[in-house]
């Protein structure tokens, strides 16, 4: 892995990419502590920031205006959820690279999904039938009393996501770091109340090789997925324990040592 190689070569410095969050705003305290005392990394960060500034400068040339080529909300939803195949993603990516408006829709949708997941979990009250627009105002006025008020800090009133103690599924086979003759099935622990699980298999570059959603806690590897021997792969499983809320396992590295299947 690149990181491991980088660590061997620069024993005392953080990996180059771990400077990125620090250069652009956030970082873990350990990296920050190192950089504070390290002139080499500080110089590196300044150069990264200079390049990032150039990228940001392009914003002055962009318009946030809708065109007929702009993405449909169904496409935006699929993109945000990471559900597009590389083929169907290509035209979407090409458009997003040129369209500040659609990128803002993607960003907002992604953020809203993350933020409203918690607010949406509270049980809803039974609601009488009503018609638009007359009944709407009355009914909605009632609802307004039920939704959270504005925060005291002056921010608009969606609740901050609260920390919940949802359990993540635990990968069982292939086990972390396993070198095994072949992989026929992937198995993980069940999560109480989980409606379904989503499994992803990655290659060493981080590209998704295969993804599947299933209600069971194991799944057979289809013939279409060929794993090469002595090449690192990774898998991860997520459980949907509550509506719109996924909990993910750790990323599990493994490799096969047998002949290719």
């Amino acid at each position, binding site marked *: 892995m690149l990181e491991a190689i980088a660590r061997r070569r620069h024993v005392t410095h953080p990996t180059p990419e771990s400077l990125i969050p620090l250069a652009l705003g956030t970082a873990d305290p350990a990296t920050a502590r190192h950089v504070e005392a390290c002139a080499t990394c500080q110089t590196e960060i300044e150069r990264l920031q200079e390049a990032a500034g150039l990228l940001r400068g392009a914003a002055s040339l962009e318009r946030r205006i809708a065109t007929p080529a702009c993405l449909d909300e169904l496409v935006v*939803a699929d993109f*945000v959820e990471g559900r597009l195949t590389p083929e169907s993603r290509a035209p979407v990516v090409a458009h997003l690279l040129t369209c500040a408006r659609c990128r803002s829709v993607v960003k907002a949708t992604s953020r809203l999904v993350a933020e409203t997941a918690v607010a949406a979990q509270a049980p809803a009250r039974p609601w009488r039938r009503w018609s638009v627009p007359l009944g709407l105002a009355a009914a909605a006025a009632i609802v307004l009393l039920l939704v959270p008020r504005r925060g005291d800090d002056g*921010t*608009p*009133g969606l*609740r901050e996501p609260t920390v919940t103690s949802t359990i993540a599924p635990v990968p069982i086979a292939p086990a972390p770091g396993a070198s095994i003759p072949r992989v026929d099935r992937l198995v993980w622990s069940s999560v109480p109340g989980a409606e379904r699980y989503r499994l992803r298999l990655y290659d060493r570059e981080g590209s998704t090789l295969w993804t599947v959603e299933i209600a069971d806690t194991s799944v057979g590897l289809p013939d279409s997925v060929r794993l090469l021997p002595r090449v690192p792969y990774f898998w991860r499983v997520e459980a949907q324990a509550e509506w719109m809320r996924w909990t993910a396992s750790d990323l599990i590295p493994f490799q096969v040592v047998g002949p290719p299947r």
Partner: protein
Amino acid sequence: MESWIGPLEAGDPEAAWDRFIERYKRLIFGAIRRYTGEPDDVMDVFARVCEVLRENDFTRLRRCAARVDPDRPFSTWLVAVVHNLTIDWFRHRDGRPRLSAIAATLPRLQQRIFEYVFLQQRSHIEAYELLCSRDGASLSFGEFLKELSATYAAATAGRRGRVTAELAIAPPASPDSATDPAVLAEQQTLLARALETIPPDDRLAVQLYVVDEMPADQVARALGYPSAKTVYNRVYRALAAIRATLEQAGIKGGDL
């Protein structure tokens, strides 16, 4: 399974609507309140969302229902729709008087900037050129960027601030970085050359994370990367490529 789809397909759209709104009203309100703290705005936009989803015999809901399956959470589509309707509502419908109220508090020059950038959705460069040519303003691009920053800060404060922020592209954090549109154009040519070799997915990851400031984990999810670390890795590579191109072109940090 979405419980409202059955009645919709069985020809009882009102029953479907009851179930739909029962399930999603909190989500819709939550999404709208993310943009505006004004109770009147929230109610008006909520009414608009209901109106659009119900119009033409529930066309929009039907179209989405046809594609809903266990792999496609309906809610993600719905928040995208609510986002677009909220922004459109503020810009096109009753929004104008409300936006004007924001502009009314600004100095004259900033009012014009607000008009060009927030209402007409022009680029910063275009707004600058219009200010100089049409409004006869005489200021440098650097000064313009400072005015733009002030306008942006004023317009995006307050109870409607978040929705206004969605109408315009944020000004650069340090307005001193480009003091002339010509320099900016030259920089962008170099930038395009540096990014040529980077695959489109990775280029988009860099754009979303660095420029649009989308959280790395959300970028990773959209692009199917295993984790935020992959985003950092791609960003590092892109920034290194940009740096190499700059050095090749003989541009030092101080020149930018």
